[in-house]
Structure formats: C-alpha cells, structure tokens
C-alpha cells in the first residue's frame, strides 16, 4: 500500500492547527493534546521515511503530484531524497519536543499552538516540496508566524526584535524570489519543477555566477551568514522558548538546505567561482560569533550567537564543495538543530524557574537544580565539540574538508574550537558551578521531574546516538552529496 506518506506528514500539523482554531480557549488541555497528536503523526511519518529509505539510490522517492497550474509551469509535487529525510526527522523531533516543552504554557494557548503548527507546516513544506513556487510559499509561511509568536509571547523589546527578524528574513527571501523568476526564465524549460531542472537544465557560466551569489545571499540571510546575522541574536532573545527552538533549529537549516538544493545543485561553475566567498563567510561566522559570545551577559543571547557560530560551520562545509565537506555540513545541520533546541529548552526551563537570564545573578545552578543544569552542560559540551557527542563529528568532517581545500581557512576554523571551549566554560564557571546566591528566587524542588525533562531526554539521546555511531546519518547523506557534486 503506497499511502501518500509525504502529504500525511505535511497535512498533519495543518489539520491539527485547523482543529485547534475551533476549540475554545478554556480547555487548554485539549489544545495541547491535539498539537501533540499532530506533531506525533508527522514524527511517526518521518521515522517511517528514515526506516524505509534505501540509501543506495539517490533519486527522489515517494514522489506525489496533486495538481498543476497550466501555462505557468507550477505544480504541487512532493518528493524526498537523502538530503531532506534527515531534516524532516529533525523538524519532527524539534516540534515534538517544542510542544512538550510548552506544556505548562498558560497565556493564550490556542493561538500559540496554532502559530507553532503553522510554522512547522511551513518547514515541512520547504523540505518536502519539489516545485519552486510552493518551495517559496512554504519558505515564507515558515517565517511569518514567528512575527506573531515573538510579538505576543516574547520578552524584552519584542516589537523591535519581531520587526527586525521578519523584515530581514523577508528581504532575504525577496532576493530568492527574484532568483526563482530569473531561473524560470533562463532555464528555458518553462517550468518551476525543481526535479526537471536538476536533470535537464543547463545554464551559461556567467548566469551561473550571478544566480549563485543571489541565492547565496538570499538563503544566507536565513542561515545567518556573517553580515546578515544580526537578526538572529535579538530575535531569539525575545522569542518564547518553543518558537526560538523551532526557529533556530529548523529554519536556519532551511536556509542551508536551500543553498544546497538550489544553488549548489544547479550551478557548479557558480559554486566554484564563489567558493572563496563561502569559505570566508563560514570562517568569519565561526570566529566572529564565537568572539561575540564571550562578552554576552544574557543566556539567550549566548545561545543565539553560538547558533550563528555553528551555522558558520555548515556554510564552511558547503563551501569546501567536497563530499566530506557536504557530509559534514549536512551532519552539522542535524546535530546543530538538536543541540540548539536542547540549549534553548534548558535556558527556557532555567528562565521559568529563576525568572532571570542574566549570568551575574545566576549562581550555583548545578547545586540548586542538578538535572536541569546537567542538560545545559551536556548541550554545552556538544557545542564545544566534545568527541562522543554529535557536534564533534560534524566539526571534524568540515575542518578535514577545509584542510583538504586550503590550509589557511582550515587553521582559522580550528581556532573556533578553542573559542567555543572558552565561552562555554566561562558560562559554566560563572553560573553553574559554585554556591547558589542567597537571593535565589526559585522555590525548592524546582528541578525536573521526568515529565518536564522528557523533551530534553529525547533531544540528548539523539545527540549521544549520533555522536557514538554517526554512520547512521552519514549513509543517508553521502549518496546525495555524490549526486549534488556530480557537476564538479
């Protein structure tokens, strides 16, 4: 029975959202359970995808076409391959744990879960759809709910952060939109279908260079490449936990996914021409953001900047244009997503317990709530690139690939490892070890019981699993990266 698995994954959150709109605000338990069921279904769907995918062939699987708009070359066509399946799994893990983390939300539960599910539906759409029109439709659909989420449930100067985040990302997507039109016009195939373009289209070198840089900047703004990254720390500092979890983990990866799927796959000469730019963006991202973290005082800003620094590793990995580099980049997308989600979940938990995120007045957290702080410490160690956790594998592969391309960039990227060690350990020193400060506002017994810690257990188990035997994920990706690089 070939039941349309992809449309089930895509429609589950949307149906859940529609259902939630009709539930009254009072019974928030029902709303939360609907959200959980919706994200649960897509979680099962993505697990089925992971199990049932045979990673020897790299072409698109479970392809479904619903309808098409005649004359405009637009059609609603779904399909997945080795690159998008891990990311679909990542999205479902994050949304599932995001919904779990916000179980104790009291304030306007209905709209929160509706917007969260809309956001994740957008993310699923981008990963599953193979048509540029619907790719862009879901790409923007994944950005807009963030505006309302930050504005209504956010903290700090949330209006400024929400505006900056949304307008910045949509400006970036404006470039991508323009790029899609040029692509449609230049490819001469009169279709927006990415699958056909990947197989048939061929572009002139000059056009490839121009379009590549256009997509690099367009998608780069979403994956927080260096000069276009300022929206992400402010945005995440003001966003509610589940929203920043989803945005940092999933949407940033969508940016990198876009670069891989559209830019690197279609424009080999363009990629070679701009390789130096991608490498420098990656390295600057790693070092610059890591340096910025060292002086931060607010936990969420720290996680925001460290997220930018880790996206630099992804950009560096893509920039090397070697199989190891792409494997490393895709692995980093997955592991970075889960790690940042875990970091945000623990920071969110600490914030709820201690009502403050400033490092100076958080003292001795390890003594006060050992379980919650162990999760933060473990996530910090992944961020640090400790072997045995997934962060290390990605960093190793990417730095190996960079060394095989150029020693200068490789050694600069190596420095990033020390910097990440410095800022993580400084946080542990200043607010986790030591004696709890007397004015600790948290009531006793604030630590996790197994129910509140369930999302963090799920997230950390993936980090550990991938750290110990990374071949599970690498075999998915290596086939696709060979195909992606066939033009090089």
């Amino acid at each position, binding site marked *: 029975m070939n039941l349309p698995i992809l449309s089930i994954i895509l429609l589950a959150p949307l149906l859940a959202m529609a259902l939630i*709109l009709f539930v009254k605000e009072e019974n928030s338990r029902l709303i939360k359970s609907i959200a959980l069921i919706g994200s649960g279904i897509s979680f099962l769907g993505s697990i089925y995808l992971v199990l049932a995918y045979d990673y020897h062939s790299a072409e698109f699987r479970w392809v479904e076409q619903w*309808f*098409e*708009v*005649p*004359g*405009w070359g*637009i059609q609603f066509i779904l399909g997945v391959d080795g690159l998008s399946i891990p990311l679909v799994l990542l999205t479902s893990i994050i949304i599932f744990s995001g919904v779990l983390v916000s179980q104790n939300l009291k304030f306007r539960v209905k*709209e929160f879960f509706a917007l969260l599910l809309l956001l994740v539906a957008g993310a699923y759409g981008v990963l599953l759809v193979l048509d540029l*029109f619907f790719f*862009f*439709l*879901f790409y*923007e*659909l994944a950005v*807009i709910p963030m*505006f*309302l989420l930050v*504005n*209504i449930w956010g903290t700090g100067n949330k*209006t400024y952060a*929400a*505006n900056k985040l*949304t*307008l910045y990302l*949509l*400006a970036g997507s*404006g470039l991508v*939109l*323009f790029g*899609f*039109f*040029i692509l*449609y*016009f230049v490819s001469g195939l009169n279709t927006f279908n990415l699958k056909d373009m990947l197989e048939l289209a061929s572009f002139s070198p000059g056009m490839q260079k121009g379009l590549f840089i256009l997509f690099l900047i367009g998608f780069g703004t979403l994956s927080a490449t260096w000069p276009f990254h300022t929206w992400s720390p402010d945005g995440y500092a003001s966003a509610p936990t589940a929203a920043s979890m989803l945005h940092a983990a999933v949407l940033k990866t969508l940016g990198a996914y876009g670069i891989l799927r559209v830019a690197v796959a279609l424009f080999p000469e363009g990629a070679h021409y701009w390789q130096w730019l991608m490498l420098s963006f990656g390295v600057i991202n790693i070092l610059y953001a890591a340096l910025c973290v060292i002086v931060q005082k607010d936990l969420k800003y720290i996680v925001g900047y460290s997220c930018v620094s880790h996206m630099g590793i992804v950009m560096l990995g893509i920039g090397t244009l070697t199989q190891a580099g792409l494997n490393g980049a895709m692995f980093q997308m997955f592991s970075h997503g889960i790690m940042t989600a875990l970091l945000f979940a623990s920071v969110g938990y600490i914030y709820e317990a201690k009502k403050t995120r400033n490092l100076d007045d958080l003292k001795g957290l390890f003594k006060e709530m050992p379980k919650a702080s162990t999760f933060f410490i473990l996530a910090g160690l992944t961020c640090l690139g400790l072997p045995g956790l997934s962060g290390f594998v990605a960093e190793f592969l990417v730095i190996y690939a960079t060394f095989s391309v150029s020693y200068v960039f490789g050694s600069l990227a190596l420095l990033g490892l020390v910097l990440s060690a410095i800022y993580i350990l400084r946080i542990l020193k200043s607010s986790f070890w030591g004696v709890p400060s007397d004015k600790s506002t948290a009531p006793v017994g604030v630590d996790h019981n197994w129910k509140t810690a369930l999302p963090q257990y799920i997230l950390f188990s993936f980090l550990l699993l991938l750290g110990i035997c990374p071949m599970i994920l690498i075999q998915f990706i290596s086939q696709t990266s060979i195909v992606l690089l066939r033009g090089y």
Partner: protein
Amino acid sequence: MWFYSVETFLVLASLFFFSWSLRKEVHLTLFHKLVGWAGFLVLLSALFSFDFRGVFFQEVYVMDGFSQLMKVILVLGYFITLFLAQEVKDVDGKHQPEFYLFLTTSTLGMVVLVSAKDLITLYTALELASYSLYLLIPMRSNGKGSAEASIKYILIGIAASGIMVYGFSLLFGLTQTTYLNEIAAQLPLLYQMPIFWVAFFFSLAGFFFKLSFFPFHAWTPDVYEAGNTQVIGFISTVSKIAGLSVLIRFMLLAGETAHVLDDVWVAIAIATMTIGNLSALIQKDLKRLLAYSSIAQAGYLLVGVLCISEKGISGAIYYAAAYLVMNLTAFFIISQLSKNGNNVPTSAVKGLFKRSPLLALTLLISFFALAGIPPLAGFTGKWFIFSAAVNSGYNVLALVAIFNSIISLYYYLMVVKDAYSDEGIEAGGLEPIRLKPAYQIYCYLSIAVLVVTGFFPHLFMSLTKQSIAVFF
C-alpha cells in the same frame, strides 16, 4: 439575450432604488433586506450572462470573454459592497435610497465602460460612473471632512476628464475615427507625429485619475480618509478595476506596438508603488493607510499590465480579483471597528483578538493577503505578476516591485501586531464586537476564498486564460 444581461438588471435595480427614494419616509429595515437581494440578483445576471458574445450598436458595444469576465468581477464588488453596507451608520435615513441608487448607476457606468469600443461610449460611461461617485462622497454626515474630500474629488475628476476629452478630440482629428480598434491599427504610422503623443497621453489622463496612478494619485488619501467607508471600499476596488480593464483592453488592441511606451509605463509603475508604500509607513489613520496601500497595489497591477503578454495580463486580472476581495474585507473590518461611522486610528485595532476573534482572524488574513504573504491569494497574484515581468525582460522593475512589497510589509504587519497584542489596555477597556450572522458568514467566506485561491490558483487562472486567449 438582452433581457438577462447585466446592464438591464442594473438599470432595473437603479429604477427600484429610485422609486424608493421618492417615498416620504423609508422603512429602513425592510429596505436593507431588499438591498441585499437586489445586489444578489444583479450578481446572478452577471454570472448568467458570462458567456454572452456579440457586437451591438454598430460595433460600439462589444461583449467578448474579457468584458464579460471583468463585468463579473465588477458586479461581485458591487454585490459585496451592498451586502456589507446593510446598516450604513453615517448616512442619515432619508438619503439611504439615493446612496444605493448612485452606487448602482456607478456600477452601470463601469459595466458599460468595460464593453465600450468607441471613444464616445467610453467617455459617457466614464462620466456616468464618476459623477455618481462624486455625489456619494458628500452624503457622509461628518461635516467639513466629507465636504472637502468631495470638492477635491470632483475638481481633480473634472480636470482629468476635461484633459481626456481634449485628448480624445485631438485623437479624433488624427485618426478620423472614434473606434478603438481602428485607432490601434493606425498607431504604427502615428508615432512619427509629435502631436500624437500629446493626444495619447492627455486621453490617458482620465484613466490615470480612475486608477490613481502616479501623476493623478494625489486625491486618493484625502478622499479615502473622509469618505464613507463602504463607498471608499467601492471606489478603491470596483472603480479602479474598471479603469484597469479599459487600460487592458487598449493594451490588448495595441498589442506589440504599445511597447514603445515601455519606459513611461515602467517609470509610472515604480513611482506609484514607491510613493504609495513609503507614505503608508507613517500613517496613523487606518483608512489613509489603506488609501496609500491601494495606490501601491495599483502600481503592482500596472506592472502586470505593462508586460502586454498573456501571462502578464492574466496575472493582473487574477491579482485584481484578489485585490478586490482583500480590500473590501479590510474596509469592512474598518466599518465594524468604527463606532458611528467616524474614522479609526491604527491604535483602535489594539486588542481586537479579545473583542472578536473572528474579526481579528479576518483582519490578519486580509492584511497578510494585501502584504503578499503566502499561502494567500495576494502572494500568488504577486508571484504571477512578477514572474510575467521577469519573463518579458523587466528585471529591474520586478526587483523594485519585490522590495516595495517588502517595505509594505512593515505597515501591514504593524496593524496585525496591534490587533493581536493587548499591552497598554486596562482589563475592562475592550467591549466585545457582536457580528451579525450575515457578516460572520462573509468573514468565513472571505478567509476561505483568499486561502483557497491562494493555494489552488488554477481554478481561477483557467478562466482568465480563456478570456484573453482570443487576443494572443
């Protein structure tokens, strides 16, 4: 065939309203029910006459695919305005019948305008439509504001139509004919004569005024701010689309030769969009904000039309239909927000989600659609228009249009933010808005329409493609 056509039904409706206006006292509630049904009947006739074809009155009046489609869109706008204007608060009782009378005559004028193929019919239909609108503005009983708006509206209107007529006379002199298709046929050999450009551009003045393009856009903010909300909804959508359809007809007739005016059209489109979007950023009054936003939307429509390709024009028609629904819903929300018909500052939207969740959701959907956010019809329309522009080679124009729609995001999103956030309002400050069941149905319908046509555009696109297929 003539009996069932839209024109007859509109004349009957205006006679019906005219008879009501002669009565001494008007039994308002009964009257308002009838208004709804009258509008519905006219809509039915438009739908029924959708596949009428034919040329009447010595090729002066043509009914082809394009005109019938545009008539359906115009009458849809007319019906929605009537349906939503059931209790017009700021027009006192005894003027109510005249209010609907002039709405109907204006729609009649526009319907005739769409089918006109000759300068005389064009001019008369245009004047009929404009004069009924000039009279609707002063009906609003808020004193200075509506008086000033009406005088501005009529002065600029008269000036534009005067220049247009002078243009027509020169055109008539040059081409010795008043039939549009013959004028279009002689276009290539007219380009050498400088006087032709004066004639051509002057005769476009009337439509620039109607569409509020760049040189003739100045009246829009003032009139929109002071006019009655339902009328302004009508003017911003139906009369703009009528002007657009004349422009499209002329582009279709001129065909390739119209490309000679390209850089003028591009300049006007960019100017209209940019001025509309930039001035809207700082507006405090909701209707004035929507005025500037409608100027910007006209700019996007022009981008579609000036490509003069099958894609461009069908995209423009799709976007016009979507724009009609979005704008009417937005003005409907303003009319619900304003207590007794007076103006609504943007801060009045605060906490709307508490006062009425359905209205807040409609506001969200309509403003997101206006901003061009997926998966709504606004986004799909913009996608068609911009991709057509890039296809016809206007890359710079498409880029400017994309970044204009990003600038426009700011003011749309701020309104939605206010609707969904409730800082600064003390707990008891919000009294809930009760929506009549008819209006609730309208809200659900408009949300459904915007989302469905946004995600599944092919339903409507096949219609537009047939309607203009005959010209390419």
